[in-house]
């Protein structure tokens, strides 16, 4: 049964290749249906693999399918191999599951787009890359998927490349990710140098025998790679700009694929991480900075999708707090539940954008609750889930992460709780601005410069979408409500996810002080109060009035000027360097060298031209004389 693992990434890959050849001919909506079926097929394959893996126990639950030797270079042998173990199967299940829903949603969302089949080629490739990433049995295969995900994100973010902003955002995502990828590559080099293999199984078994410094370096470098993909401080700017892509792409990037890759990588390397506490602390600190900074930035955004983007960054920060604190299960738990409610929120936001004819400004919405009741309900569920209101999914998963943080350090826990309050607040603000309050939009069509969809010029009549969009939204809403069932904290037997994942994970260093169950209850109550409190504050402030400039400071709107700082430091100095090259180095140094060579040749030529008399016989005499001298020289040297 676990042999089905190979089909998980292959089906969407084959479908993408098929659509490259025949997509245009099949057109809309058939190409979309094929793509959706392919991803659905890989979900089915994931389920079959899962059942297969369930059939064995403990450490036997790791099944590796060797296909062929990819890179045979002397002692460096890289196998094309896929690994089915509890961690990768969990990832494959939710990646393919959520992606199927997003594909289905896209069929309706992308209706009328002139590049409809192309969109689904990219989506399929994206999912295939992500599945290769999670199922790879060694770092290089993961890296293959990692880069595939990177390039597909570039294609999809700048899908509407006629818009200059979309094209720029795509480039930014590409470049920021490449910078971080250097870290991943260095980690692989170091791992190969010190261990001699890139297979996860070898890495994990060799980890206790290599030096502590090397181990820390490997983990930190891999985390640098993860910082790019998972948009950690200070490399998160690209994720906010990635909102220029179509909404299903945002949902796919934020929920199912791409950004979870970094967290996955760190959890995959958790047996190494557990032995490198220094690296773990570094990850925790970056995580908490990211969570807070992004949540604060999220409170002041006016674009319906940008709020969600910063919220994703913040939630990823939480996942890394979990990873750094040794609460690996909590990180994966949060990742899975986050996939449910973030996909839900994005798809609902897409439904709003769709209904409002491509309007994304929260300040130009309002009072949509009556017109789009199902979307409003779904968004409300998403808000409750991400805020961590019991009994929604986020309450349990975020609670687990915060418990892990509490066991490490109470200040990290405190920062996490404050951020949780902010989370509830900014999501509440978004909900109130979009669905409650006064109506701030007109029915007259707004002429947009780069509107591509066919309905751009029609009047605005907000409405709930059709079943292809609403179905996935409602299904995800259901999952966002009950997602907590995966890992209930009340009894050991209810911690399903924890027992299931245990064989794949490293054993965290013993917590400083294990929290007693009464402490756990107190923490849970604090979480719930903070979540409800943040939500209530948002409701009280934003449900009546839509303008509170004092609560939206400019430095939060521009996300702590991190992009501007990067611009000043990297772009400005780079431009200055280019100018110096153009104005000084090129004319003086390079031209100087070239002209110098010319001048030498000229000087020598002017000196020597007098020798050339033009008289044939004189030159013949010179040749003859030269020959005689040469022969004499040879003769004398030869001892004659």
């Amino acid at each position, binding site marked *: 049964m676990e042999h089905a693992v190979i089909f998980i990434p292959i089906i969407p890959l084959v479908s993408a290749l098929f659509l490259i050849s025949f997509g245009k001919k099949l057109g809309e909506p058939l190409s979309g249906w094929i793509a959706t079926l392919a991803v659905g097929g890989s979900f089915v394959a994931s389920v079959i693999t899962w059942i297969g893996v369930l059939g064995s126990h403990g450490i036997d639950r790791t099944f590796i399918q060797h296909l062929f030797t990819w890179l045979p270079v002397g002692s460096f042998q890289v196998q094309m191999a896929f690994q089915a173990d509890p961690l990768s199967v969990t990832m494959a299940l939710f990646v393919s599951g959520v992606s199927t829903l997003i594909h289905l949603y896209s069929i309706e969302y992308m209706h009328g787009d002139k590049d409809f089949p192309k969109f689904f080629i990219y989506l399929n490739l994206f999912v295939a890359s992500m599945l290769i990433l999670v199922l790879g049995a060694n770092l290089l295969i993961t890296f293959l998927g990692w880069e595939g995900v990177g390039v597909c994100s570039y294609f999809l973010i700048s899908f509407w490349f006629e818009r200059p902003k979309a094209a720029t955002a795509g480039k930014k995502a590409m470049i920021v990710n490449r910078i971080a990828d250097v870290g991943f590559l260095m980690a692989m080099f170091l791992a190969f140098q010190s261990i001699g293999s890139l297979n996860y199984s070898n890495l994990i078994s060799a980890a206790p025998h290599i030096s502590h410094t090397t181990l820390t370096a490997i983990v930190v470098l891999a985390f640098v790679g993860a910082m790019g993909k998972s948009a950690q401080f200070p490399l998160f700017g690209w994720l906010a700009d990635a909102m220029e892509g179509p909404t299903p792409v945002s949902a796919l990037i934020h929920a199912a694929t791409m950004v979870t890759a970094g967290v996955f990588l760190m959890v995959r390397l958790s047996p190494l991480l557990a032995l490198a506490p220094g690296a773990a602390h570094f990850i925790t600190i970056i995580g908490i900075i990211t969570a807070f900074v992004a949540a604060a930035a999220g409170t002041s955004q006016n674009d319906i999708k940008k709020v969600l983007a910063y919220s994703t960054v913040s939630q990823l920060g939480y996942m890394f707090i979990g990873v750094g604190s040794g609460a690996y299960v909590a990180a994966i738990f949060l990742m899975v539940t986050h996939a449910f409610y973030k996909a839900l929120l994005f798809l609902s936001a897409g439904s709003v954008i769709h209904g409002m004819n491509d309007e994304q400004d929260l300040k130009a919405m309002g009072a949509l609750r009556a017109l789009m009741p199902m979307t409003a309900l779904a968004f409300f569920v998403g808000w409750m889930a991400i805020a961590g209101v019991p009994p929604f999914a986020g309450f349990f998963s975020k609670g687990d992460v915060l418990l892990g943080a509490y066991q490490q350090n109470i200040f990290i826990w405190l920062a996490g709780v404050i951020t949780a309050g902010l989370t509830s607040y900014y999501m509440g603000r978004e909900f109130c601005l979009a669905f409650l309050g006064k109506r701030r939009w007109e029915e007259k069509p707004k002429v947009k410069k780069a509107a591509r969809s066919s309905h751009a010029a029609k009047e605005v009549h907000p409405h709930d979408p059709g079943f292809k969009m609403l179905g996935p939204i409602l299904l995800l809403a259901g999952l966002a409500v009950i997602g907590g069932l995966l890992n209930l904290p009340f009894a050991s037997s209810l911690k399903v996810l924890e027992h299931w994942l245990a064989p794949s994970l490293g054993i965290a260093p013993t917590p400083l002080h294990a929290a007693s169950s009464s402490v756990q209850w107190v923490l849970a109550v604090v979480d719930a109060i903070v979540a409800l409190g943040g939500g209530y504050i948002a409701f009280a402030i934003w449900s009546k009035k839509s303008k509170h400039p004092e609560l939206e400071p400019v430095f939060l709107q521009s996300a702590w000027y991190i992009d501007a700082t990067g611009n000043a430091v990297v772009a400005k100095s780079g431009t200055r360097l280019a100018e110096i090259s153009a104005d000084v180095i090129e004319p003086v140094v390079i031209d100087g060298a070239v002209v110098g060579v010319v001048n030498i040749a000229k000087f020598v030529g002017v000196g*020597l*031209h*007098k*020798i*050339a*008399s*033009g*008289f*044939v*016989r004189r030159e*013949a*005499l010179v040749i*003859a004389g030269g020959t005689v001298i040469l022969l004499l020289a040879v003769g004398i040297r030869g001892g004659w």
Partner: protein
Amino acid sequence: MTVSVSWYVILGAILFTIGVVGLLVRRNVLIMLMCIELMLNASNLTFVSFARQHQDVGGQADVFFVLVVAAAEVVVGLAIIVSIFRKRLGATADDLSSMKG
């Protein structure tokens, strides 16, 4: 009296010297071309002689190359001379110094 190899080599040297001196002292372009031919054939003779002495066919093979080059040289040289004679009458080598640097 046997004719040893050294005779041939000496003959080659004499021919070569005649060619060199002829090239240097005569002004008629045609004669100079013939002197070059003389030098080439003198070296051919030397090649063959040494090839015989060392029982090495390589020297004889070289002669063929020299012959081919000589033929090509004559073709080009004569063509140049013909085109010069078309422009001016009775030109000598010393009049043709337009390549002066």
